[in-house]
């Protein structure tokens, strides 16, 4: 980061820009007095107030950057401990996460993704012989005498349906993971200084207020609200442990050698599949119910966190000079 090492502190840049705005305002007041322009005079007086607010916002931003992280860490740790969410508490206790809500949220998401991958693997392994036998065909002089599709097609369709849903769930979790990572590396380092600089000038004041609110919202509010929602809601820790410890190893052990390229192996697999029919029904039913919890974790929780964050951004940006409420609905349509 060349320019950040070259200049000692972003606060100095923002303060200098605010001072520049102050001097321009003074010059404009001189012009207003010279031309005796009352409207310009009134506008300049309002600008003095805006310049003072700019300095206040810079001070507030420095305070947020300096102490906001500690407050966020303490808040997250206390509430997670009180909730009894074991996977979350494990991530908080993990020293690699430094008590940071963003890292904790990311670590928790990776736990979910790994769990979804385990379930995907288990279903994939169980589907392997089932799909093979559903597509097998025996011909006699061009006439298909036997096919497995009518017997096993239902199972195969169910497995495909479950795995397709898991793909989208894992994808949503990954999107959240990357949003958190993007926020961690860019919001306070890039967007906040840009927002403060833009806010100093009347032409770009609206954009600056919006970017500042956006930066603070995604740097603090989004990770904290996500972790707090996770802490308070039911979690999939017990199910994930069961899948990782029992379901997946059993599946891997019973179908670890998928050699179906000769009739002997095929017949052996056929009889194994037949003997496991009852047990497989139970496992599939368990996995089917498990996926419902992941829908909650992947879609509902981040949606609530985003609503809280956007509400914060909307209110805060109005305080800082933007008018997001006026354009918000239309903008969302375009996007």
């Amino acid at each position, binding site marked *: *980061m*060349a320019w950040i090492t*070259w200049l000692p502190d972003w606060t100095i840049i923002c303060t200098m820009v605010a001072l520049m705005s102050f001097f321009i305002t003074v010059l404009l007041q001189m012009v207003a007095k010279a*031309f005796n*322009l009352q*409207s310009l005079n009134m506008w300049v007086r309002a600008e003095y107030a805006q310049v003072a607010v700019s300095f206040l916002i810079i001070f507030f931003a420095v305070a947020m950057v300096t102490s906001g992280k500690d407050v966020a860490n303490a808040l997250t740790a206390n509430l997670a401990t009180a909730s009894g969410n074991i996977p979350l508490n494990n991530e908080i206790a993990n020293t690699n996460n430094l008590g940071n809500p963003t890292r904790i949220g990311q670590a928790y998401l990776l736990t979910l993704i*790994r769990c979804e991958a385990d379930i*995907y*693997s*288990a279903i*994939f*392994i169980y*589907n*392997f012989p089932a*799909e*093979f036998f559903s*597509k*097998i*065909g025996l*011909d006699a*002089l061009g006439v298909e005498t036997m096919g497995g599709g009518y017997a096993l097609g239902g199972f195969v369709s169910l497995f*495909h349906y479950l*795995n*397709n849903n898991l*793909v*989208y769930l*894992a*994808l949503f979790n*990954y999107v959240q993971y*990357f949003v958190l*990572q*993007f926020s961690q*590396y*860019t919001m306070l380092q*890039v967007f906040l200084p*840009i927002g403060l600089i*833009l806010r100093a000038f*009347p*032409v*770009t*004041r*609206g*954009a600056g207020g*919006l970017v500042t609110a*956006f930066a603070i919202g995604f740097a603090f509010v989004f990770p904290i609200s996500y972790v707090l929602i996770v802490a308070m809601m039911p979690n999939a820790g017990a199910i994930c442990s069961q899948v990782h410890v029992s379901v*997946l190893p059993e599946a*891997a052990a019973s179908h*670890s050698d*998928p050699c*179906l*390229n000769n*009739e002997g192996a*095929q017949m052996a697999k056929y009889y194994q599949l037949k003997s496991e029919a009852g047990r497989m029904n139970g496992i599939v039913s368990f996995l089917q119910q498990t996926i419902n919890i992941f829908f909650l974790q992947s879609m509902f929780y981040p949606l609530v966190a985003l609503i809280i964050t956007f509400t914060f951004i909307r209110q805060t940006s109005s305080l800082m000079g933007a*008018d997001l409420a006026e*354009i918000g*609905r*239309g*903008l969302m349509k*375009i*996007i």
Partner: protein
Amino acid sequence: MTDMAAIACNATVKAFAANQSVTPTVGGTVLGSEWLLLSVLALVVSTLALSLLYMLASFLRNTALITWTKFELFQVFGTVAILVFFGTTIAGVCAFDMSWLDPHDDVLHPNGRYTPVTPGETTNMYTIIDNYFDKLQELGYLIFGYIMYISKILTFLSRLTMLSSPLGVGSNENPLETMGQLNSLIFVMLSGFITSFLMLQLQMRMLDYLALACLNYLFPFGIFLRCFEPTRSFGGTLLGLSIALFLFYPILMVFNDYIMYSQISDLAAEQERLIQGADGKVVSESTGIGGSVAETGGIFGNINSFSELVADGVLLFVKPVMVYFIGAVVLPVINFIVLVEIARGATAFMGDELDVSNLTRLI
């Protein structure tokens, strides 16, 4: 390389600054090649008229008219200031060296990341944006090749059919049929990637269009119309729009480049290393079962069991496309929101505020 550097810094900007006819294919500005002369003439006429009006108001001792005339004279002065500001900015935008943004001290870029320029030229924002788009396009082609490479292997494995029908009696099997369900993940990744790539191309074309539109008719029209009181608001709106789009949009793209290749550069570099291995392999001849399985193992690294292969393979597909999605979709959406706010502020400052909410309702 996009045409933007050529348009913005070679022909049009220099011709604009020198008040000559620009870009032969466009055939000059809408107002003709002497738009600056026309604008100065309009300013002079407006000033003379206001001066006469001021003298009349003083003679008649009409305080309201005096106040109004002073305000209008200030507006003419403001128009001149805007003209000088924009002209100076256009003339200097290609000379402003932004190489100080280059992360020389980064571990990943010890020699700097920006392409060295020929002596006498500067690393201006258009050079940075051109490099950024080239890099993203190249990354896009690699990602597409990677996805096609994986899809080729999986499709081949899933379509393997073993037939045995001596004397017309036998069976047919697809032992690896189940590998086909991994294609659903690939199709999801592909649709996300295509959206990202199209958004990138749109950004590139937008910059080309803005360089032409703002310099050739938005700004000239804006200045000319702002010289006269009845059309001052509309002219100010055009000026605000041209300043917001021509100046701030490239600046936002420069910060996109900084974010992608300085702040999250290690993440982007990791994905580039991952997909470099797939470059050129789509049309390779290793189509036998052994070759395909070996390539599958090569993609996923040291896999100890079939279940690990599936789990890790599912996760590996997602990351490169996600990183590309950040650069090609997420950042432009943020740019768009910020740009709309800047356009509202600039148009409100110089004339009539742009009514974004009603515009978006129309859309």
